[in-house]
């Protein structure tokens, strides 16, 4: 179809079309090269991390991931503590952010007066616009002291003596630690999860919801039995998106996590995360092996976030396909 069209116009006015076609090809080529640049960026990051970290991987093998010692002087690097800290803080973040984000999405689609929905949604999204270093400063100077003075003593007294979860909440109330970092991370990922949730909630076909209401469902039952099942894949996608953000967040965590390389069961104790370890130590790394170990950490972080974000994207695409949207 296109070919016949092109050849026909070609016959009618050859000189103009010819120059047009050449410029057309050049323009198309330029845009294609730019598109390749996006792929190159991803590939470049992956390859350079793997290359930069090869010395650490060769030297330590699997013990790089399982080793608990991060010994700068003795040049032995095991990344278990930062990996553990990254996972724990991200888990705390999700425990807080997921219910809150779904609550916000529900509030904005069903409860809030119509005039207030836009402004509230923008305000929540501004949480994502605030630079992470501002979260870090606020966390260090305001939120950590608040946790130390008010929240952590309470946790010590009320949860620290419980049987199974006790050890999680026992420890000196210093404010800096995994719990504080997890909460700050939770606040930071709320806007990402809630904006997706809000979008997909409002994409649920009205007849579905209305028929549930007509059958006598309360609004909560509509959410539980219609909206959430219908949007399940996208909500899971949104959660993974939030997880990807939380895993890789650097500056805010660096401020409030304490940069400690000790393993501790207590959430109140300082710890480390992959991103924070890189941010804190990279410019101080004076040996090849030290630097390589930090880049290897970056490689691990990149691979994990890549997988998490890929799952997120696939889940989000599933609902779009269901709704008949190609994009």
């Amino acid at each position, binding site marked *: 179809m296109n070919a016949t069209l092109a050849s026909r116009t070609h016959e009618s006015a050859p000189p103009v079309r010819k120059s047009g076609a050449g*410029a057309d090809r050049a323009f198309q080529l330029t845009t294609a090269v730019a598109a390749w640049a996006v792929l190159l960026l991803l590939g470049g990051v992956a390859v350079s991390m793997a290359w930069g970290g090869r010395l650490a991987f060769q030297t330590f093998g699997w013990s790089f991931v399982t080793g608990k010692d991060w010994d700068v002087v003795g040049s032995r690097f095991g990344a278990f503590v930062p990996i553990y800290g990254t996972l724990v803080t991200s888990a705390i973040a999700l425990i807080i952010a997921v219910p809150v984000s779904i609550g916000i999405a529900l509030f904005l689609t069903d409860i809030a007066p119509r005039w207030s929905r836009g402004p509230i949604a923008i305000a929540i999204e501004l949480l994502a616009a605030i630079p992470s270093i501002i979260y870090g400063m606020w966390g260090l100077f305001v939120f950590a002291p608040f946790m130390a003075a008010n929240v952590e003593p309470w946790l010590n007294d009320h949860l620290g003596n419980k049987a199974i979860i006790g050890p999680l909440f026992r420890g000196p109330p210093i404010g800096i630690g995994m719990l504080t970092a997890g909460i700050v991370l939770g606040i930071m990922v709320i806007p990402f999860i809630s904006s997706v949730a809000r979008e997909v909630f409002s994409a649920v076909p009205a007849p579905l919801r209305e028929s549930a209401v007509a059958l006598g469902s309360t609004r909560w039952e509509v959410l539980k039995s219609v909206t959430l099942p219908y949007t399940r894949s996208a909500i899971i996608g949104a959660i993974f998106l939030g997880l990807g953000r939380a895993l890789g967040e650097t500056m805010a965590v660096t401020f409030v996590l304490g940069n400690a390389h000790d393993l501790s069961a207590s959430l109140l104790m300082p710890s480390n995360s992959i991103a924070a370890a890189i941010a804190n130590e990279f410019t101080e790394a004076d040996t090849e092996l030290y630097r390589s170990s930090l880049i290897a950490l970056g490689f691990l972080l990149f691979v994990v976030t890549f997988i998490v974000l890929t799952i997120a994207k696939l889940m989000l695409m599933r609902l779009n396909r269901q709704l008949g949207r190609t994009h």
Partner: protein
Amino acid sequence: MAIPARRRVADVVAFAFATAATVFGLVWLAWILWTTLAQGAAALTPALFKEMTPPPGASGGLLNAFYGSAIMILLGVVIGAPIGVAAGTYLAEHGRYTRLAAIVSFVNDILLSAPSIVVGLFVYELVVRTSGHFSGYAGALALAMILLPIVVRTTEESLRLVPDQMREAGFALGLPRWRVTRQILYKAALSAILTGILLGVARIAGETAPLLFTALNNQFWSSSLNGPLANVPVVIFQYAMSPYDEWHELAWAGAFVLTAFVLFLNIAVRLLARKGKK
């Protein structure tokens, strides 16, 4: 038919929770903004914009950091935005329905959320290690890499919003495809594309992690992009983590200016976008 009490209670509880969740989210926003405003306003002085970053114990300003940030953001936009617009054009126009476009679109979404510190490490390996020193160029390149996926995404979306009739009208006039894109589509999508670039600027203005090992920092005035360059986020980081009160104050002042700039861009862009829609 009356709804049983248990179901009614569940309904009320769920809705109370949703309202509380929204309040919860807004409280953090208010708390963080209030802290930055109160602490920052107190530290705001004319010297902030006139003097250089001081050694510990002395007073000073952030002039060199503002300059360094501005120049790196500008260069980052100059590098990142044209490539981003071109790639977005490929996704929405010239490569539409191709396999390459589908893959790039997918990868781009991942880059949008990828950890920015990894980009910093990448540029370190790529530029700093090969050239042997930290530099403003490396910092600008890192910022361009953060900006790129944002511009790609918004360009693609804004071009898709242009109705096909406009493309067909252009073809019907006998225009070659590249002129349809340049003279019709870019004009129609201009404000949306600019919006995307401005949002990207707001994002890279606060990025700290990619600059830590690329531009590093510089206590003194330097206008050379070929050496370590002071910049607002890294100065805030170093000063906030330091034990000195004067440095803390400067960090708050910097945080205030940075937050005000980022929020202003975000809100202004949203207001303009809404006006454009009406």
